[in-house]
């Protein structure tokens, strides 16, 4: 068991170190996230009241778009020079590899969410009324997206059509996360009188199922 967590930590640390060196997230994905927010502003006629009303939904759509990029990157790191073969030969358990890869994506998503939160506050004039709910929603949704995304990244890996296939495979599955996280934010940002904490329960269920299911299914995908 300690080997399991040691391996997971090793893989996560490796991915985060690669990100720290290559700065793909910081130099490419983060500006893209802000760009998406700005584009929504153009599309919705730059009316701040409208933007503020839609901020939770726009926020989570932007997170999903950026998550796609982060997951593509996470897959391509292993594909670029056949590192995945090396990982298979190392005898590391596929579940540990899954937890490691997903953890690294999770950390990156949290960073993006912080950035986007600042974005909607500055650009859309949103106000955080319940910070705790915002944090809890952000963390649970990031777990759900990172785990589902890592599993689906492995599904589409090694295919020539990976870039185009991943969104159509992944986004429908994440529909409940989008709905749940948006509604929770509606409450937390004071946009609508809904019970955000109830939605958090749904996100928690999704996150738990995605983590356990992903760790189990990853073996079937990575092992040959």
């Amino acid at each position, binding site marked *: 068991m300690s080997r399991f967590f040691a*391996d997971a930590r090793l893989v996560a640390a490796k991915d985060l170190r*690669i990100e720290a060196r290559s700065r793909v997230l910081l130099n490419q994905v983060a500006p893209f996230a802000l760009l998406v927010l700005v584009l929504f502003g153009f599309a919705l006629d730059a009316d701040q009241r409208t933007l503020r009303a839609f901020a939770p939904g726009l926020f989570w759509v932007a997170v999903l778009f950026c998550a796609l990029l982060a997951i593509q990157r996470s897959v391509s*790191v292993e594909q670029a020079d*056949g590192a995945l073969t090396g990982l*298979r*030969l190392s*005898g590391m358990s596929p579940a540990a590899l899954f937890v490691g890869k997903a953890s690294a994506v999770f950390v990156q998503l949290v960073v993006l969410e912080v950035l986007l939160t600042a974005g909607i506050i500055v650009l859309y004039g949103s106000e955080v009324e319940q910070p705790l709910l915002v944090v809890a929603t952000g963390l649970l949704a990031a777990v759900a997206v990172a785990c589902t995304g890592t599993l689906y990244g492995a599904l589409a890996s090694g295919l020539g059509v990976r870039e185009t296939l991943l969104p159509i495979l992944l986004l429908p599955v994440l529909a409940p996360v989008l709905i749940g996280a948006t509604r929770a934010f509606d409450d937390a940002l004071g946009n609508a009188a809904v019970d955000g904490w109830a939605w958090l329960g749904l996100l928690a269920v999704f996150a738990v199922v995605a983590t356990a299911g992903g760790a189990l299914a990853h073996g079937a995908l990575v092992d040959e």
Partner: protein
Amino acid sequence: MVELNAAVALLGRFPALTGVDLRIEAGETILLQGPNGAGKTTLLRLCAGLLAPESGTVTVLGHDLTAGSERRAVRRRVALLGHSTGLYEDLTVAENVRFWARAAGLDAELSVERVVGALQRLGLDDGLLDLPVHRLSAGQRRRTSLAALVVRRPELWLLDEPHAGLDQAGRSVVDKLIGDAVAAGGTVVVSSHELERVRTLSPRVVTLAGGAVHRDTSP
């Protein structure tokens, strides 16, 4: 050590191996040769437990590789040097070698010691250790990749064209490495187009053609 009987392996639907019969004893060194597309790479990957045989039997280090769990078990005990080097571009040489050592389950203390030793044996001077892999030449990359394998001290070496892309000094290093592995009691299978070079290392030459053993000579 390694025994294949009528082993067939598919790549997608293409029969890369069409029925290989081969027996390799412990401590033996064999040279695998044959025209491009003869199935050398697939044979090495099959022995490493990365592929499931479609039919026939493959036994490596006592593991019957028709079973998935056995394929997983054998992977830890072999070293496969493939065409791609399996290195992370953005990490340094030392970080890469250390990562692969720890991924193979070696503890941190031991791995540092072995990493340094392995890199020195491969003639990678200290100045290279902290360079990111994307700054290396093809030959340096291959040596780094070999260093990551040396650290694991495998029982069976499967080297797919280890000389490719190396200069004379690099080729000598590879030869010395193979010699060391044999001296340490390891079994080595090398595929190479460098016939003369490997002949001095190994008396047994297996020629593959059409996905099967065409000739097996031990002069």
